[in-house]
């Protein structure tokens, strides 16, 4: 093995580790957490105060929908909508575990009804409709409920003539609802067409990770597309592509920076800068 190979291998192992688990490891105790990216031992409170970004290396950890909402929206302004819509099991799907059981587990784990929270709120005083996805709920996968809530949120924006923001975090379509999940891609994209026709601003914020059916529908249809720092975004998964083309991919493949390089997104924002950025964009599009 040459020195170059050794470095390559080391880099790949780091990526593999990162891909496996991009959250912080809180198994070290109640007070301390470990950054998977730089291996630093960190005080949990320091990470929380830093918007769930590693204070040492700046790595952006995944955050759930509620944390995202509390970081972005002015305190007390976010009004949740369509929270009563819940999952059905139209195909009575069962793999190694039944879909019903998987849903029950996800609900208990996340204290959420489904993988998206819809609502209306204010970002630095600017009103907007928003759909915020949550990767912790079955990998943020899009089934009938996610598709319906995203569509309803866009229709609410249409009704109130306000901007719409979608914040994505998803592994893709939800297999357990098969074709009905696929149809959510069409449904949400048709709703974007309506926003376009009404001349309403639609912003998407792509966060770690955004893949598959969500990428290939409402995520990539924003008038303005922002990717959060350290997010991985793509259509097909890295492993599938490697198996298909039988060669290894660049280390930064499908990162926000990579997408920026290939002209697929408008900008990259770090977490601290996201709220002021969204507020500026909303203000610039306000009709005077």
């Amino acid at each position, binding site marked *: 093995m040459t020195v170059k190979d050794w470095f390559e291998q080391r880099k790949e192992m780091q990526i593999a580790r990162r891909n496996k688990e991009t959250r912080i490891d809180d198994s070290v105790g109640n007070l301390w957490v470990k950054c998977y990216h730089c291996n630093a031992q960190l005080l949990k409170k320091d990470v929380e105060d830093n918007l769930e970004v590693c204070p040492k290396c700046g790595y952006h950890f995944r955050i759930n929908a509620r944390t995202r909402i509390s970081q972005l929206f002015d305190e007390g302004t976010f009004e949740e909508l369509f929270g009563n819509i819940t999952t059905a099991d139209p195909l009575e799907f069962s793999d190694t575990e039944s879909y019903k059981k998987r849903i029950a587990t996800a609900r208990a784990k996340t204290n959420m009804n489904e993988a998206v929270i819809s609502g209306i709120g204010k970002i630095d005083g600017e009103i907007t409709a928003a759909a915020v996805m949550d990767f912790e709920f079955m990998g943020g996968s899009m089934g009938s409920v996610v598709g319906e809530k995203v569509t309803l949120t866009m229709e609410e924006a249409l009704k109130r003539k306000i901007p719409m923001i979608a914040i994505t975090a998803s592994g893709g379509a939800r*297999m357990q609802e098969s074709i009905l999940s696929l149809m959510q891609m069409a449904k949400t994209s048709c709703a974007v067409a309506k926003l376009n026709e009404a001349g309403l601003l639609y912003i998407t914020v792509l966060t770690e990770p955004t893949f598959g059916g969500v990428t290939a529908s409402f995520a990539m249809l924003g008038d303005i597309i922002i990717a959060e720092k350290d997010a991985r975004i793509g259509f097909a998964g890295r492993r599938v592509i490697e198996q298909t083309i039988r060669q290894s991919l660049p280390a930064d493949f499908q990162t926000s920076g990579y997408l920026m390089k290939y002209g697929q997104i408008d900008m990259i924002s770090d977490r601290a800068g996201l709220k002021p950025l969204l507020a500026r964009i909303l203000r610039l599009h306000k009709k005077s």
Partner: protein
Amino acid sequence: MTILEFEKPIVEIQKKIQELKEISESSGMDVTAEIETFERQAMEYKKEVYASLTPAQRLQIARHADRPTFLDYIKLITTDFIEMHGDREGMDDRAIIGGIAKIEDKSVVILGTQKGKNTKENLVYNFGMPQPQGYRKALRLFNHANKFNMPIVTLIDTPGAYPGMKAEETAQGTAIAVNLREMAKLNVPVIAIITGEGCSGGALGLAVADKVYMLEHSYYTVISPEGCASILWRDASLAGTAAEALKITSEDLLRLNVIDGIIKEPLGGAHCDYEKISDDLKETIMRAIYELQDVSPKKLREQRYNKYRRMGVFCQ
């Protein structure tokens, strides 16, 4: 011709009948009545076999090497087909072929995914897996149809959009997403037919339509049964189990209100009778065109929107 596992007994019986015929001819014995009985029994048996195929077996028919491809249908259902190449941005993806043509007396824009029948052809057509540029070419053709007020017909047979490095770099997800959105805005009738494999976003990117039909043995799914099995069961060899769980057959999709109709295939599958399946395909397309041609553009868009708006099952 490729013979599938469940076809073997049928082929065996047919061979025996043939032998019997030859014996009777050479020996001068008259066994016509017996042969007729055997043939009738063979037919009954064949019908029985095809009526009780598992989803996994039907998957094999949908993927049959001799299944008619887009270009076969073009020859059999259209006249005066003129191919329009390229996305006008640097590439002509051969996995999606399209152009203008006449079906009976109607000028249409017709396009679809093209698969090869052997390795050499499949390398040209990339196994029917489009690149983003293929979807952009499709969109260019949709816009052409919109401009000149022609109905759009898409024929879909794809294992999915190509998962490659260059496809990601040139925005596969975006290309599909844009088609979904733009198809919603079209002012002309759109008719989509799943002729073989209808896999995932790669199929849907050509299938946001006023009328969606499936050939009897084709399948339409969010993920290939192999992909699903390897993710959920961690074992790709359980594709048959996944195919059943995913409810991917034409009857399943009709029941779920995702498609508008099923086009029956000749006994044994579409590859057994190209003319018959093409006639039926043509008839379905023409019926849909006549039904939609007098609907106003505004109404058409509204109906299309409402059709997809209703999709999904949840509790409230």
